């Protein structure tokens, strides 16, 4: 065992990269849930974004176009969910699950001819002097732009929800759609837009996986990150700043288990592999134990179908 081989600086730097896909997906899902919609299709939207982004980047040679297409792809497939749940008033849980299965199948089909192809390299920040500063350089100034984009998005969502009028409307819709409707706000329109934003974010998260973190395309490559993103939203009790904490915690455990293994720590790998999921369960149990407090945070209209009867 040689723990000194694990460099804390590099560990932090790589956990930031490793958690970016789930960070993007979960901040999007947070906005969706804040508007009172529970979309369980994050996994499906992520993987759709992963293949749309990958295909577009390979075809055009530009990772930027890839990311744009990933966001569009994620938003488009989320529109299916939006139409079904908002206009046809279908059950959100069932529709979300169907969206995940649909997304996994669709992406596998779209991706048939993209297996084993190298995508173009994504631009990475490399400032001549600043990136070489010890400790801070690798952590803050040497990532690809998705890491910064994700952080900016978290900040933006926090500001939007807390300080803007539109953010307030979105929260009002999520807390009580009947009251928001009575005040004259377009509940369905707000929710459709929120769902599409969530889809776009999940799509970006998928592309961060297929274009930056791996970078390659394989069927089912999201491997459950969409579900982790959903868990993080609950873990963060619907607060943007805690999303960041949750995502880095989950990403950190995943990176740490590989680091410990390489350092020769003789903990059975199975325990380390399941630890992120175990933490999810523990957090969910801990949260539901304190029902009054967690219920206070959850949007009151979460998962409820809205039908303007008057």
């Amino acid at each position, binding site marked *: 065992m040689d723990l000194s081989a694990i460099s804390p600086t590099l560990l932090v730097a*790589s956990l930031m990269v490793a958690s970016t896909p789930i960070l993007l997906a979960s901040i999007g899902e947070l906005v969706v849930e804040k508007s009172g919609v529970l979309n369980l299709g994050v996994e499906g939207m992520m993987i759709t974004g992963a293949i749309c982004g990958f295909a577009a980047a390979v075809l055009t040679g530009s990772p930027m176009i890839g990311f744009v297409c990933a966001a569009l792809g994620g938003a488009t497939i989320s529109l299916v969910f939006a139409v079904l749940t908002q206009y046809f008033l279908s059950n959100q849980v069932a529709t979300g699950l169907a969206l995940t299965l649909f997304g996994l199948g669709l992406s596998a089909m779209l991706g048939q001819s993209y*297996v084993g192809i190298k995508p173009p390299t994504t631009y990475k920040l490399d400032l001549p002097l600043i990136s070489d500063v010890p400790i801070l350089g690798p952590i803050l100034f040497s990532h690809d732009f998705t890491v910064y984009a994700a952080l900016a998005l978290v900040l933006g969502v926090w500001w939007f929800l807390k300080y803007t009028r539109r953010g307030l409307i979105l929260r009002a819709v999520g807390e009580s759609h009947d009251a928001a409707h009575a005040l004259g706000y377009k509940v369905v329109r707000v929710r459709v837009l929120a769902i599409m934003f969530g889809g776009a974010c999940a799509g970006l998260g998928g592309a961060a996986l297929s274009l930056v973190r*791996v970078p*390659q395309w394989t069927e089912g*490559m999201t491997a459950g990150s969409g579900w982790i993103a959903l868990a993080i939203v609950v873990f963060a009790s619907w607060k943007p700043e805690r999303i960041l904490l949750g995502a880095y915690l989950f990403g950190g455990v995943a990176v740490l288990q590989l680091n410990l293994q390489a*350092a020769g720590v003789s903990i059975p*790998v199975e325990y380390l592999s399941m630890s992120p999921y175990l933490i999810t369960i523990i957090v969910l149990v801990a949260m539901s134990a304190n029902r009054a407090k967690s219920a206070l945070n959850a949007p009151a209209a979460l998962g409820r179908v809205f039908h303007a009867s008057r």
Partner: protein
Amino acid sequence: MKLRSILVGAALALTAASGSLAEKTKVGFVYVGPVGDGGWTYEHDQARKAVVAAFGDKVETMYVESVPEGPDSERVMTDMALKGADLIFTTSFGYMDPTINVAAKFPNVKFEHATGYKMADNVSIYSARFYEGRAVQGHIAGHMTKSNIVGYIGSFPIPEVIRGINAAYIHAKDVNPDVQFKIIWAYTWFDPTKEADAAKVLIEQGADVVLQHTDSTAPQAAAQAAGNVITFGQASDMSEYGPKPRVSSIIDNWAPYYIARTQAVMDGTWASTSTWDGIGAGMVGIGEITSAVPADVKASAEALLARLRDGSYHAFTGPVNKQDGSAWLARGETADDGTLLGMGFYVQGIDSEMPN
């Protein structure tokens, strides 16, 4: 009337179909990854294409890709056998028990299982001595590493993979006594995300050579992004990552074997056998050593390769001790195939514990 004519038509079609089937030899292939993985499955599929090219109309092949190891593979094999396959190649270690089970149900269908050790009257086993290639890789790795840390991405702790680690370590240590191996088990044959993460972690912990026993090119991409790291192509040449990071490779060449076995089925001479060929027989190929390797290292690697090829040197030649320090091979003694096939221990010097 109408129904009857349909039935007659169907019966006629069936007879016609089975008539044409009788002339063709049907060969099935069960793959563990996608044919586009650029590694293990890709090479098996190349060999399948070689079978088609060799026999043309006389053979019909079918394959199913990305079949999970375990019970689901049994369903795929059964399906192939029911579709009239005469010969089925099951190309991953984890298909071993399913192959034996299905073979018992279809005594007239011949099965060929790769890299396993269980045989039956209608089940042959075949594998390649990849460890010979690993010896060459270890030799180059020992010479090339500056940090003296070599990273190794293992798939599952099974004899085939452990042999590779040991062979690479022995030959790296031979040329560089300070070399140290860091091993990560990915517990998958093909998962680019995991493989990429594992490669990145190894590189972060100082490895400047990454060996992989998993099938995707993701570790190659990670090494390329990291810069000063070298890798070796696994199962396939992976030359698109040359001349650096990929400095050489182990290439599996199954085509001659697949063609010979298909021929044997056609001739009715097929018998259950155990085949384990190496560099000498051409089943294991070593990809071109690129310009990133200094000329003297390349020359000594090729000398080692030549000795492995003509059989004058065995990749496991004593003195070699086991990890716990107990003696395994005395000076000049070479390992017997039985021990190699069931290898479940590291050799002395590897500073890592094997998972159970």
